[in-house]
């Protein structure tokens, strides 16, 4: 099996799996007051400290959640509600046009049900929000913006955003800034405090932690309204009994992923470059999507994204799958029907280019033989898919 879909999810790190399985049979509700509860609480708080240290946050700034989608919902809805409550004029939500659906659809929901208006921040042909675009969007009505949300690195084409610069522009107007950094952690240096953002989404399963465990890093002074109501376990903004084994495994994984990030990034960037040159050598008209500058502040090291003219992405995926090579066409709706990617459309590509695209994403288990297998298969696969599209 050649697994080239690490951006969807990546295998758990053995140490994280060990942490998790070691705790699965240990009883304890971290909110209980007795010894068993205190033991569970200790695991949670040590994990919180580990996560905070790895990501440049204070322990009190780590709100543990059920993953990236929940963190995005909490950030976008929570910031919107809190800001609107403090100042009813603030109803504008500025969101990049290349966000994940967890942010995009949350913003659209606020527009449909909570009186928000959504401003889409255009991106350039590499998929990047230029600082002047954000500045202009804010300048239209600085007093009406509730929050800005721009992802750290794009899940489809790997484009890295100038987060610190964008956050500074928002802060100059007293506007809260959220970033979805689920693709960035483990691939790029991510430092919450240094970035200056108010809220930052992370999720375990993108860097070798468990599925269903994540966090929203939330500045100490940043107010959000809760999305999940109940026991108020996490800073009174997130309720639900804490998943102790998953949280501990999340901490183990983030610690390792961040520690190993520099070497991993270098190794993945090397593999990615040979993947890109290998594919282009076999399919000369393959079009690389995203930033052509492969430096780490421009593009995720593990990301390669192509359009293959004259092909349908789903046919390519199926033909590669039949050869035990696994990749992704990008966004899929709930029925599993591939839709042309909103990210590629926002970058100015047409529907045909969007429909004929494939994402290959590398991660900690990727090897040179994975790349070789893809390069060996892609030529005949593209040829066959091309004949099927006619």
């Amino acid at each position, binding site marked *: 099996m050649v697994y080239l879909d690490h951006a969807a999810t990546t295998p758990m790190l053995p140490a994280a799996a060990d942490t998790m399985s070691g705790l699965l049979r240990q009883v304890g509700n971290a909110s209980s007051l007795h010894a068993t509860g205190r033991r569970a609480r200790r695991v949670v708080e040590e994990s919180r400290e580990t996560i905070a240290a790895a990501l440049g946050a204070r322990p009190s700034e780590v709100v543990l959640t059920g993953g990236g989608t929940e963190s995005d919902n909490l950030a976008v809805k929570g910031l919107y509600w809190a800001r609107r409550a403090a100042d009813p004029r603030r109803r504008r939500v500025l969101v990049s046009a290349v966000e994940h659906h967890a942010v995009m659809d949350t913003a659209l929901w606020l527009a449909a049900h909570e009186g928000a208006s959504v401003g889409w921040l255009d991106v350039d042909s590499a998929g990047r929000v230029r600082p002047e675009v954000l500045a202009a969007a804010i300048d239209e009505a600085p007093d009406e913006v509730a929050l800005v949300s721009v992802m750290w690195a794009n899940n489809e084409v790997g484009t890295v955003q100038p987060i610190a610069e964008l956050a500074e522009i928002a802060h100059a107007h007293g506007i809260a800034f959220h970033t979805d950094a689920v693709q960035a952690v483990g691939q790029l240096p991510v430092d919450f405090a240094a970035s200056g953002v108010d809220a930052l989404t992370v999720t375990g399963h993108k860097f070798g932690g468990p599925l269903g465990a994540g966090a929203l890093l939330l500045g100490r002074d940043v107010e959000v309204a809760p999305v999940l109501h109940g026991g108020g376990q996490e800073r009174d903004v997130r309720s639900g009994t804490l998943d102790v084994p998953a949280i501990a495994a999340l901490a183990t994984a983030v610690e390792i992923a961040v520690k190993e990030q520099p070497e991993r990034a270098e190794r993945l960037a090397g593999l990615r470059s040979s993947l890109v040159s290998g594919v282009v050598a076999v399919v000369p008209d393959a079009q690389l999507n995203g930033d052509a500058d492969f430096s780490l502040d421009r593009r995720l090291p593990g990301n390669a994204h192509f359009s293959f003219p004259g092909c349908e992405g*789903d046919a390519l995926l*199926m*033909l590669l799958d039949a050869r035990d090579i696994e990749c992704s066409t990008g966004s899929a709706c709930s*029925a599993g*029907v591939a839709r042309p990617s909103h990210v590629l459309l926002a970058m100015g590509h047409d529907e045909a280019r969007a429909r004929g695209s494939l994402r290959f994403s590398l991660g900690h288990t990727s090897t040179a033989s994975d790349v070789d297998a893809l390069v060996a298969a892609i030529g005949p696969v593209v040829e*066959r898919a091309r004949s*099927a599209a*006619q």
Partner: protein
Amino acid sequence: MRVLAALSGGVDSAVAAARAVEAGHDVTAVHLALSSTPAAVRSGARGCCSLEDARDARRAADVLGVPFYVWDVAERFGREVVDDFVAEYAAGRTPNPCIRCNERIKFAAVLDRAVALGFDAVCTGHYARLVDSASGRTLWRARDEGKDQSYVLAVLAPWQLERAMFPLGDTVKADVRREAQARGLGVADKPDSHDVCFIADGDTAGWLRGHLGEQPGPIIDASSGAVVGEHDGAYLFTVGQRRGLRIGRPAADGQPRYVLDVSPVTRTVTVGTAADLDVRALATGVPTWCTSAPPMPGSVLVQVRAHGEAIPARVEELSDQLGLRLDLSTPARGVAPGQTAALYDGERVVGSATIERTVD
């Protein structure tokens, strides 16, 4: 063989695919997404386009251990089946969307793509039999008379039949359900689908009204020529229909009235007695032959609706050389332009043609 099994999410296609796997074929399953905005759940016995059906199809593929994908044919289905359905009604004709779907989607768009991607055949859960002989492949009625779907497959040409696989033709439905149960397929007791799959609530009249708007006009009695009522749209009526006619007073002869003719241009619906519905001869458009054309003039059996009776008839080419003339030995009742006439030689499907008009 490399086989592409189309899984609707129902029991028939699941068992058909299971049999293809068991026969040793290299099977890949696809669910055809026919709507770009599928409903979340299935309502009653209708629909093959809901997310729940996609899930059921996926689960069947899991049980069979075969790869599963969703193929988006919504745009093509909308254009070639749904739009055609609306246009046919708007023209006063009575279409059969299942036939269009087989002709243009399942055994055309999907089959073409499958072949291009390296598959040898498309497998479906249709109840019909394929028989190979020296003279080629022939299409026959299913063993289960009640489920026989040869009528909706009679539009398939030889090149399509060559690439088709219908593993259920020799099995009765009750056995298919039992087999699904035995194989651990969760869809074993799922209700049969019928009616038009893209009209989720089954209200065809309401759906057509939504697409075509109100087009009121007169209802005229054929015997007297008098206007006997009004209607909201000629497209809401099909030949042979009795219900839904708003006729104020009973006819002079005291007999119930049926729709005899629908004329959208003049927005006129003509009604008459049951006896007026009897049709003895039909003229059709260009036929499709499943193998080769039968000798003409010659004798065939003609079926004009799914699960209708097969009537002995004489078939000959129309003088224009394009269509057929069918002289029925016993009258058929309520035949509308747009319906498909399927031609049989005993149990074997000879071919089909779209009915254009009745002939005196």
